[in-house]
């Protein structure tokens, strides 16, 4: 199964993250699954003219293309030309390459939120006119038409994340190689459900603080970061706390908020990333599938019931009061 990987307008971080794949390493993972890397810009040998010849043979159909992975957003500027990113040596904008190659591929994978929806490259007024492959932010239709389907009949598979977890990418590829990923296995935004059906909140180590709304006011405090520090882990799709990052990490385990990086338009939250916008002291963004009044009632009840231990630890950078100390006290 032939894989071609191209880096468009992004940071390359999804590749760097992919190289962190473990058990086994990324090279063995792909090889063992029968995936033949035609070319990858970070690790393949071919450079320059060798790559141009390879791309020509793929474009002409001489070499079948099974998996087209695009990392980074597609820039359409300036003035709709795409010339803010010319694929080096080819004299053609990446926008053009993507439009030519995508219909030839059995499946097209947008690796990372930039390739999926535009992502960080489209932040702050979007100076380069960045879009995703099949989405422009939340709107269907990006570098490719909203009706685009790869040869398999599947839409673009959006492995969103900033960066992507290495397993999200490798497991998607392995499922495709095993012919076990159908359109029904993607969520409404095109993300593989095996990770997107979870919330970052699930297994977050701050869950006990969340239960009592014992909130951190400053970064480095142990409390829940939803009320003051911009955390949207209760709404963000991802298994980040179920399947840790780089051994044992996640954003909330690292002590900073989830910024919903698997979602379209996360790059423009319309408030500082590490500050929760509130109306009359009530956070604006609440769990989306719970009636607001219920949430508020439960929150004020649980706040009132907060054990001393949790209240003290929430405002500390380390556990001050261990469980079991002062049993039964309020």
């Amino acid at each position, binding site marked *: 199964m032939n894989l071609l990987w191209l880096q468009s307008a992004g940071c390359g971080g999804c590749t760097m993250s992919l190289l962190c794949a473990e058990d086994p390493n990324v090279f063995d993972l792909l090889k063992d699954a029968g995936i033949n890397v035609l070319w990858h810009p970070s690790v393949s040998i071919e450079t320059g*003219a060798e790559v141009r010849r390879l791309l020509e043979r793929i474009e002409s159909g001489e070499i079948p293309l099974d998996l087209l992975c695009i990392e980074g957003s597609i820039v359409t500027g300036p003035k709709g030309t795409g010339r803010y990113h010319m694929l*080096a*040596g080819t004299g053609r904008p990446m926008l053009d390459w993507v439009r030519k190659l995508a219909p030839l591929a059995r499946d097209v994978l947008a690796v990372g939120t930039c390739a999926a929806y535009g992502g960080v490259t489209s932040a702050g007024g979007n100076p380069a006119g960045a879009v995703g492959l099949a989405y422009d932010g939340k709107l269907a239709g990006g570098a490719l038409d909203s009706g685009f389907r790869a040869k398999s009949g599947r839409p673009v598979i959006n492995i969103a994340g900033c960066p992507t977890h290495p397993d999200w990418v490798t497991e998607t590829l392995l499922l495709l190689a095993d012919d076990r990923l159908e359109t029904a296995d993607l969520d409404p935004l095109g993300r593989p459900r095996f990770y997107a059906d979870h919330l970052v909140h699930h297994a977050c180590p701050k869950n006990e603080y969340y239960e009592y709304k014992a909130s951190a006011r400053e970064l480095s405090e142990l409390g829940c970061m939803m009320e003051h520090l911009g955390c949207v882990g209760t709404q963000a799709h991802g298994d980040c706390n179920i399947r840790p990052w780089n051994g044992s990490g996640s954003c909330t385990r690292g002590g900073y908020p989830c910024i919903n990086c698997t979602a379209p338009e996360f790059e423009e939250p319309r408030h500082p990333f590490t500050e929760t916008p509130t109306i009359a002291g009530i956070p604006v963004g609440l769990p989306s599938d719970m009636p607001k009044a219920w949430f508020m009632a439960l929150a004020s009840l649980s706040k009132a019931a907060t054990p001393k231990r949790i209240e003290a630890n929430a405002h500390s950078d380390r556990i001050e009061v261990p469980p079991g100390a002062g049993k039964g006290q309020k």
Partner: protein
Amino acid sequence: MTERQLLVGPFNRVEGDLEIKLDIRDGQVAAAHVNSPLFRGFEMMLQGKDPRDALTLTPRICGICSVSQSAAAALALADAAGTQMPEQGALAAAILHGVENLADHVTHFNLFFMPDFARPAYAGRAWHDQAVARFTALDGSAARQTAEARSQLFHIAGLLGGKWPHTLAIQPGGVTRTPDARMRIRIRATLRGFRRYLEETLFGTELESFLPLATPDALEAWDTGDAALFLRIARDLGLHQSGIGPRRYLSYGAYPVAGTRAMAAGVWEGGSVTPFNPADIVEDLSHAWMLGEDAHPQSGQTVPDEDMRDPGYSWCKAPRLGGRIAEVGALARQIVDGHPLARALADEGSVRARIVGRLLEIARTQVLLEQWADALDPSARFMTPSETIKTGTGVGLVEAARGSLGHWLRVEGGRIAGYQIIAPTTWNFSPRDRDGNPGPLEAALVGAVAGPEEDTPLSVQHIVRSFDPCMVCTVH
């Protein structure tokens, strides 16, 4: 006399996209024009945002130097607020940064640079079989070992920084996760594992015996590990005579810990080091597709020329120090800091010198990380809450794996009014300036051999990759 032009690209095993135009005369590069063909516009995106948002957005300039960007942004914000990280917070930040730099260096050697020597074009060379076994792209034993060792090293980033890349753990006031005693011991254990990897593969013996090498002769006598394989190849191919840089080296000084920098700042030229003065930097726009005036980054702007007019040929601005080019990177850092072997290779300024500079720094960074991890004090404060900045200016100067990285910030009315970034490869891969002087890579490529059959000359590839360019940082 034979003349031809070559357009080299896509140029891979560099971070990001790169295109080089070569004028070839009589089998040698007569002139090179380096183009950074991607523009995203981070400096424009940041305008009008809350200054703290730079901590989330600027790491995403680059997936390989993400922590460097984060550290520079945190320092710029702290500078603007007039605050400092507590000592232990700075130490934890240095560990996160050192881990990234160390990982980047071994990634460069094993995955980006060495695979070229496994090419069939070198078949028949005495070292070729060994290079093929170790460094064949995607498949050599070194690729696997490095991927695994690197992944494990980044467990430190997972533990201390939540994830890599794109951590938000480094803040102007310190770090967001306070390490406890078991985290400290776990970090030390991971570092011991990485030391084992380095000593079993790259150095072939304990790295303390590589560190004291002081002369090119002593270096030449080194006979263990992949380092020895590289030196053998370098001898055979004359890599000590190719890709000669400007021999003017710049370092902002690496790792602000304990009130100083673990590696010194300065400018080396002609055998002596002079202090680095940030006021001497000007970004020249004459050959960039950028509008506006040449400026110091504190007052600079980023306005792309949508018509991409001549004589522009790159999105990269051309930073100059006192009007002249300077090379940045591991070699520059080790020269400025005074490592005897690096100093001895300063005048050589070659492909070999750059790789050896990196090998030295791999060994030194491993040792520094071990010392820093040992010095972590779980009872200390790692964060002091920092003020929200309403108005002011700040500068964050750090050393990324690839060299000097600076963020220049201006805040007005609580919003970012100016944000300029000069990345390492902006220095090294800059285009020509107003006086027509080429950038460091452009100059280093002149004289490179381009055989009549070659459409992507190997010597050019070695020279380009010896700088370990990061193109996504370059233009940002």
